[in-house]
């Protein structure tokens, strides 16, 4: 049997609480990916596509009006030249307005095309990434759960040896320093570290336990005065 070098059971308990916190962050970060994709997709479809569709209609009307005005101005200019009467010197101003309106219309058309292209790209490239996130999410839930269970086994073994009620010592939301009375920790730590019959943590695996179920020796001291104080 390998000798345990556990000088402080709080080390496992503290790490367990970090593992629980880590699992929660993973779940929150990875499970939010689908919602994030949906938000952007809806923004593109509902907000941007609708906006640029309306803009395109509006800007097309403005362009057509400007074009009519330019054609009229062109007619006036040519007619004036033929009659040799009071002439409209040029249709340049109308031409400039028409060109500007056409650029605005083209811009709306390009934006609409761009929005549609991104809607497609998000489906094609975004969905597989969301699937990856979900796959990692499920796997991490399982792997973190197994890790926490293993830490619980180790803690159970340590505290069984020390005969401390683990239910009072494994409180996820409670900081380690509050959950375990300092005096208790000190006594038990020395008991684990100094006892020649200290249990091996490696024996925590089911196979090892089946092979050699080590009877828990009577603890030298009995700690933990009031468990209720640590359950809240």
């Amino acid at each position, binding site marked *: 049997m*390998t000798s345990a070098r556990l000088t402080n059971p709080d080390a496992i308990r503290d790490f367990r609480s*970090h593992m629980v916190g880590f699992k929660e962050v993973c779940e929150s970060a990875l499970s939010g*990916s689908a919602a994030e994709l949906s938000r952007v997709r809806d923004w593109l479809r509902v907000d941007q596509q609708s906006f640029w569709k309306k803009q395109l209609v509006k800007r097309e009307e403005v362009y057509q009006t400007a074009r009519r005005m330019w054609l009229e101005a062109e007619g006036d200019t040519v007619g004036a030249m033929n009659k040799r009467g009071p002439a409209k010197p040029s249709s340049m101003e109308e031409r400039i307005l028409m060109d500007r309106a056409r650029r605005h219309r083209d811009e709306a058309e390009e934006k609409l095309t761009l929005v549609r292209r991104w809607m497609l790209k998000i489906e094609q490239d975004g969905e597989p990434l969301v699937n990856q996130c979900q796959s990692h999410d499920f796997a991490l839930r399982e792997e973190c759960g197994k890790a926490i269970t293993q830490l619980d086994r180790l803690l159970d073994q340590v505290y069984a040896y020390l005969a401390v009620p683990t239910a009072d010592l494994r409180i996820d939301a409670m900081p380690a320093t509050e959950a375990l009375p300092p005096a208790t920790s000190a006594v038990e730590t020395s008991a684990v570290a100094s006892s020649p019959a200290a249990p091996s943590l490696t024996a925590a695996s089911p196979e090892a336990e089946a092979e050699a179920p080590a009877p828990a020796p009577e603890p030298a001291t009995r700690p933990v005065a009031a468990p209720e104080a640590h359950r809240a």
Partner: protein
Amino acid sequence: MPNVSGDDALLEKALKDLSAAWSRSSDGWQDAARTTFAELHLQPIEIRARHGAKAIKQLEALLAEAMRQCS
């Protein structure tokens, strides 16, 4: 316009914190069970979480670019 969450950074930070907590735990816990735990549980979790953070980062880059170009 929706915001990009920055979840990849959160996950990276959580991973860094977990790694630091693991290192700290070596002060009071050093035995074969620790090594076994690292090999069987911690390392696969770390690899998986890094892949997860990478996937989130790629997704967020894609969405941010869509918002930048289409706004």
